[in-house]
């Protein structure tokens, strides 16, 4: 069985969804992770889409965006953004997915700008719903291609707060949600210790802890015993490939 690092990442993300979870799905890659979870181990998961949709069944066709007609057809609710964000803000979301250009060891995410306000090097699209998910979800899962310029010592802008500067920072600034539970990359899975700092929890079968550390922009803590991420099962890969036969989300790097 062969699979790509991106397939590994999406399947691993799908496993973060527990059956019955309310999932804030958001844009792009998590759309695929939600479908894989629904079609495998979490058939009762519920998906929130900030355009105003709630789904209890996976969409019948590949979604390029959450607002595609295929996501509307058979939706369990079609309301507004403030409705869905209100449900998020009142604690109804178990897990939310985030992506970004940069993440630091405390899980703080940047999707706004590389460089400073005065001298921006790359203007990124911005928060979308990410800051909201990061604020309110019981736990968040961050998806990120693994590279030193992405897993960085310090993000240039905190769009979506993780554990801030660590410790009880979230409580101090008043954030109600639980914070990040994992950073899932193309190379491994990082989880967070009691101080809110990320460590390597597992590396994907096709890499090594050393490669993961080398491609991380900070001095990544790697415990003595670190697991290998279980490879995608046939069922997971099939669910993903049936959903995305042309590799729209699987193929992109």
């Amino acid at each position: 069985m062969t699979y790509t690092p991106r397939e590994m990442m999406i399947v691993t993300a799908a496993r973060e969804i527990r059956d019955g979870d309310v999932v804030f799905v958001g844009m792009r890659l998590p759309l695929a992770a939600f479908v894989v979870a629904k079609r495998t181990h979490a058939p009762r998961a519920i998906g929130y889409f900030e355009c105003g949709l709630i789904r209890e069944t996976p969409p019948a066709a590949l979604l390029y965006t959450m607002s595609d007609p295929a996501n509307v057809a058979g939706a369990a609710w079609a309301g507004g953004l403030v409705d869905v964000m209100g449900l998020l803000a009142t604690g109804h979301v178990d897990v939310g997915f985030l992506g970004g250009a940069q993440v630091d060891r405390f899980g703080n995410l940047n999707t706004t700008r590389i460089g400073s306000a005065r001298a921006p090097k790359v203007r990124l699209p911005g928060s979308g719903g990410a800051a909201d998910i990061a604020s309110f979800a019981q736990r968040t899962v961050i998806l990120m291609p693994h590279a030193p310029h992405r897993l960085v010592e310090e993000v240039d802008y905190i769009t979506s707060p993780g554990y801030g500067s660590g410790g009880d920072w979230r409580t101090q600034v008043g954030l109600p949600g639980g914070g990040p539970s994992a950073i899932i990359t193309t190379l491994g899975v990082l989880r967070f210790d009691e101080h809110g700092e990320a460590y390597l929890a597992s590396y994907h079968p096709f890499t090594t802890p050393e490669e993961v550390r080398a491609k991380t922009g900070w001095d990544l803590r790697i415990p003595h015993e670190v697991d290998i991420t279980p490879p995608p099962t046939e069922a997971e890969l099939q669910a993903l490939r049936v959903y995305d036969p042309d590799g729209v989300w699987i193929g992109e790097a």
Partner: protein
Amino acid sequence: MTRCMTLAEAIDRFVPDGSVVAMGTCLEAAIPFAAGHELIRQGRRDLTLVGPISDMLFDHLVGAGCVRQISAAWVGNVSAGLAHCLRRAVEEGVPAPVEIRDHSNFTIGLALLAAGIGAPFIPTRTSMGSDLPLENPDLIESTNPLNELGEPIVLVRAIQPDVLIVHVQRADEAGHAHLWGPLGVTREAVLAARRIIITAEEVVPSATILRDPNRVIAPAHKVAAVVEVPGGAHPSPVPGYYDRDHAFFEEYHARSRTLEGFEAWLREWVLDLPDHAAYLEHLGAARWQALQQTRETV
């Protein structure tokens, strides 16, 4: 009474230079591209754009030099990637600098909600600890006056657009409009905006609309103009009418990577075409037909 007119007339009369314009309030669905293109054709300047996420349209307007400021949560190309014109504007000041007031989707929704209910602001716990309130003067860090411990809170200042442009499935001549599918922040925006321009796939008899008043999206007396623009949201989708033209977003993404490429794209798809009918003709009947949906019964 009829509020029907051409798109050129509606944009000319109701969106002067300097306007605060909300568009794309259904997120990736029913984006009023035809109206946005008409803004470019008429050379509108100094606009402030307001919206949650903009799937490509704001990038067109920035690239065409229409925009001075943006209050939004996300400006890019949802299925393809970054917004190249926005990058040039922010990073290089080309064709002109643009001020961005970065919101989250929730805060832009709350800003419109506040304006629509006549509240100066709405307090929220989102964006606390992020850099959004540090740079956006419309997100004010404060403390909750109802809490003895002075818990932190962010006050989202109301945003009142001068005009909301919303694309709908169908409307009557008087401005009663049916919208369905993902509503995004449209319900908040119709209350917040001073006036509304409706572009509709179809203008239909009033009886068709009024048999289901719960589906009417806005009070008709706030509607300044109704314009029948079939395909007016292409390449974004309209539930019940047509699907998203994903390739169009990819093509724009590739061509707009350079300034020259963007300018050629803009000439081809906007400036060299007199109106949206010509745009659909340029798109080609086969491509357009392939996107059509079987109509839903609603």
